[in-house]
């Protein structure tokens, strides 16, 4: 949000070298013969009240990264520092590594970090009423107190654009956009500080998508929420994000202020990705950079920089050495050996 901030200001979540490997089993004894490195060295941070967009092609590990932060998957390695109020005992707040917490502590943290899912149909239990769905997190965490909570729920429902009389209805009675609103109300019921939004609008029609994005922005302002916004639609991500992180095959490629990243990318992958976005302007002559080949296989990645087989600037060093994810300009990180020599094109 603020233009000139240093990294240490206002950090809410600081992810360092996060890894999540899924083992590949083979044979009768189910021996582990390899690993799918879905998340392999992911580093980013989120400040309070801001939105970090997380983008990349399918299979790059952006969803897995989001889930590993909440320990829906056990991390294989790395640290997840989160500034928790509840763990610090109320008014105070302190940075705590989530990767080292036990179940009871983790449960407390889950009140502060919520999640919104992509599929508004399958992420709601069809046999529960809207009221029960929104109340469920409160019940699970022992925060449900009959009358008081019902008032909170009604307030939440109206806040997300539904009505109090929707309370006793079932999910199938609602449209896709309304269901997503129910999911948003549920995510906010415990008053979280960070919401991980996993493709929250990609299943919605354009007009409903715009309504939902506006709602997410309003809620962010009113409740001072921070979002991690995982999506593959680059225009949506730029619209909603303060900063954007680009992932490629489980690793970070680039992270910067949204406008900086889109206009002045420092990583060739970001450049190619941006050039592929179709522009809604028929007079615009596109000069797309077509990336050759497919995304690397995360169980058998290439040597050196994972992007080098598809990179049009690749040199010898890119095949040999893994580039470091480093801060090239204030608050602008990229993992590319050639970042200093290249002049890349933005959108």
């Amino acid at each position: 949000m603020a233009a000139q901030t240093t990294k240490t200001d206002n950090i809410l979540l600081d992810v360092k070298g996060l890894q999540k490997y899924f083992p590949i089993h083979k044979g009768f004894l189910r021996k582990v013969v390899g690993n799918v490195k879905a998340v392999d060295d992911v580093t980013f941070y989120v400040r309070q009240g801001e939105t970090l967009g997380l983008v990349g092609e399918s299979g790059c590990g952006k969803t897995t990264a989001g889930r590993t932060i909440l320990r829906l998957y056990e991390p294989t390695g790395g640290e997840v520092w989160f500034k928790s109020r509840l763990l610090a005992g109320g008014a105070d707040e302190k940075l705590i590594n989530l990767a080292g917490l036990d179940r009871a502590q983790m449960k407390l943290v889950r009140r502060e970090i919520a999640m919104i899912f992509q599929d508004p149909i399958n992420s709601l239990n069809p046999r529960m009423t809207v009221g029960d769905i929104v109340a469920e997190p409160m019940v699970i965490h022992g925060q449900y107190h009959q009358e008081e909570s019902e008032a909170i729920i009604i307030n939440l429902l109206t806040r997300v654009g539904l009505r109090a009389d929707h309370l006793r209805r079932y999910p199938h009675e609602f449209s896709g956009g309304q269901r997503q609103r129910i999911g948003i109300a549920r995510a906010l019921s415990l008053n979280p500080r960070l919401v991980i939004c996993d493709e929250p609008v990609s299943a919605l029609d354009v007009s409903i998508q715009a309504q939902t994005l506006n709602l997410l922005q309003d809620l962010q302002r009113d409740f001072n929420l921070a979002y991690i916004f995982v999506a593959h639609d680059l225009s949506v991500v730029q619209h909603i994000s303060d900063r954007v992180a680009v992932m490629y095959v489980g690793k970070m490629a680039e992270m910067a202020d949204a406008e900086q990243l889109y206009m002045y990318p420092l990583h060739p992958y970001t450049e190619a990705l941006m050039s592929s976005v179709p522009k809604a302007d028929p007079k615009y002559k596109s000069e797309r950079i077509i990336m050759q080949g497919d995304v690397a296989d995360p169980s058998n990645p290439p040597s050196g920089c994972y992007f080098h087989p598809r990179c049009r600037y690749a040199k010898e060093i890119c095949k040999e050495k893994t580039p470091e994810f480093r801060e090239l300009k204030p608050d602008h990180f990229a993992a590319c050996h050639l970042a200093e020599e290249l002049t890349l094109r933005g959108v």
Partner: protein
Amino acid sequence: MPENELLVQIQDLRVEFDVRAGIVKAVDGVSFDIYRGQTLGVIGESGCGKSITARAILQMIPKPGRIANGQVLYHRRARGSTQTDIINISKLDPDGQTIREIRGGEIGMIFQEPMSSLTPVYTAGSHIDEAVSLHRLTPSRKVGDQLAETIQAHKNLTKQESREIAIEMLHRVGIPKPEQRVDSYPHQLSGGQRQRVMIAIALSCGPAMLIADEPTTALDVSIEAQILDIMREMQEKENMAIMFITHNLGVIAEMAKEIVVMYMGKQVERASTVDVFYEPKHPYTKALLQSIPKVGRKSSARLASIEGMVPDPFNLPTGCVFHPRCPSFMPGKCDKIAPTWKRLVGDQWVSCLLYEEV
């Protein structure tokens, strides 16, 4: 070859679904022309009838739908000949010989979900074979076999010859190592590769027209860019017409020459792509354009959104169907009088009372 050669004329097409709760007018009086070598874009939200319109062209409307009125005139021409026969597709038997020759052979199609349109038990090649005949990939067969089958069915070639064409097609759509890929099964391919196999299948018989129904919606932008390039290249080479259905306005801006905007089964506006983007006339078109975030310039402004929701198809609003959500709603007019389909300037058509004297 002259530029404006008519290929398909759709005239006042109406498709109805007779279901228990009543009749749904999925397509309600749509007319447009498709020319050889050009791309017509159809945009609109889910349920606006754009896919059903495309299916009507191929007589592939799912039950209990039926073409209630209107006609689809197909200007058929044998390869290399200049003789044109006009066939009224809407009068053909959906299971008859003629329409089966046209489907896949003369009018190819690609659907949205590449996984479910390939049969898992076939390989890529057999898919292209088969696609030529059945327009679907079978998962338990090699894609190559499926490809070759399509080609065989429509071209009377031997198995070996059609396999060679299958490999050639896979190569043209940019599948790496096509000689090997021809023997892989759909699950061994990535989503982008499966979609490219579907395109190879659709293009393997050199169709006069390609119907692409949300062909890139499920794909990443990088793969999308590749696929759009392949389609344009093929169009240029074969003078193929494309009917491109999508709700992605960026994609349509790049691909289409002319655009039809649909809302609740009706066409609300039709114009050249530049006019639609620079001089949109219908309030729905304007709202649609404003509701998409644009890359590049950063604005902290809120997106303009269309208020409300798509109406219930059994309980359509009176007058103009868009009036409950319309920012230019004129009380006493829009809720009482249905607008007519009117030509404004040049080739810009619109259906809105703002442009009528009432």
